[in-house]
């Protein structure tokens, strides 16, 4: 138990330290010549028009919600998946299989619903 968290911490510390050092080294070694054209956003050589602070389509929001819902579904699948063999060995296999089939089935209905309604069309 002690072993694992010390190694993890060391790795985290080294990775963070390495990242910081590399980024700082660049600041030390690189030149600094702020010229006028660098102050604009890059727009393939044209004069920048407007700024990047504008709203976006709601579709992206739907993707994020779908993601969260299915991520939580996967979270419920984790303990079931890791235990399934034990349940089979204990003779509870069929019961647990049906249980999870119902669980996945209910979500599959949801997926079918949004699919049918066209929420998965990124037209």
């Amino acid at each position, binding site marked *: 138990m002690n072993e694992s968290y010390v190694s993890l911490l060391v790795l985290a510390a080294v990775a963070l330290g390495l990242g910081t050092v590399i980024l700082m080294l660049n600041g030390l070694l690189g030149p600094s010549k702020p010229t006028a054209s660098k102050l604009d956003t890059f727009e393939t050589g044209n004069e920048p*028009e407007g700024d990047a*602070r504008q709203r976006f*389509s709601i579709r992206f929001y739907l993707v994020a919600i779908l993601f969260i819902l299915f991520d*939580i579904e996967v979270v419920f699948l984790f*303990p079931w998946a890791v235990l399934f063999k034990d349940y089979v060995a204990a003779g509870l296999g069929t019961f647990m299989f049906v249980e999870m089939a119902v*669980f996945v089935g209910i979500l599959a209905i949801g997926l079918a619903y949004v699919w049918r309604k066209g*929420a998965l069309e990124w037209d």
Partner: protein
Amino acid sequence: MNVMFYVAAVVAVACTVRVVTHVNGVHALLYFVVSLFAVATIFYLIGAPFVAALELIVYAGAIMVLFIFVVMLLNRGPQSVAQERSWLNPRAWVGPTALSLVLAVEVGILLFAGDLELETQTRVAPKEVGITLLGPYLLAVEIASMLLLAGLVGAYHLGREGGREGGREGAHREPGAGR
């Protein structure tokens, strides 16, 4: 072990304070992610690695991304910072802070007076969590799937209204075409 716990706890509390006090939405959310990370570390230290991993996957990896995503989609820029700043005047936060302090004192008294065992020597393996979840709470798991289904349908209908209003010309409309 104890030192680790207190370090993680201080990080968690400090980050959470910054979440509330920060005026920039995305910066506040980043503090929130770090705070969740600290809480996951605490879970790991007190012997609950499965919960620690889920904390990272669901909260830090999923729900926070959704928040940042929404902040990006609304994309208010400087006005929202000004608005946040106006909300953070003392009148707004003195009351809740005082009440939270009362709670904090209570927790402090409990921690130092009671014989709370911090270092639990038992380590809850992922399988044990599953045995409990899929044993006594099996029905709750099935009900959770209903809840997720409701969320799925609800999210679609909430998202649709906005989608119709803004037209259907594409998943990634150019910024110039924004409403």
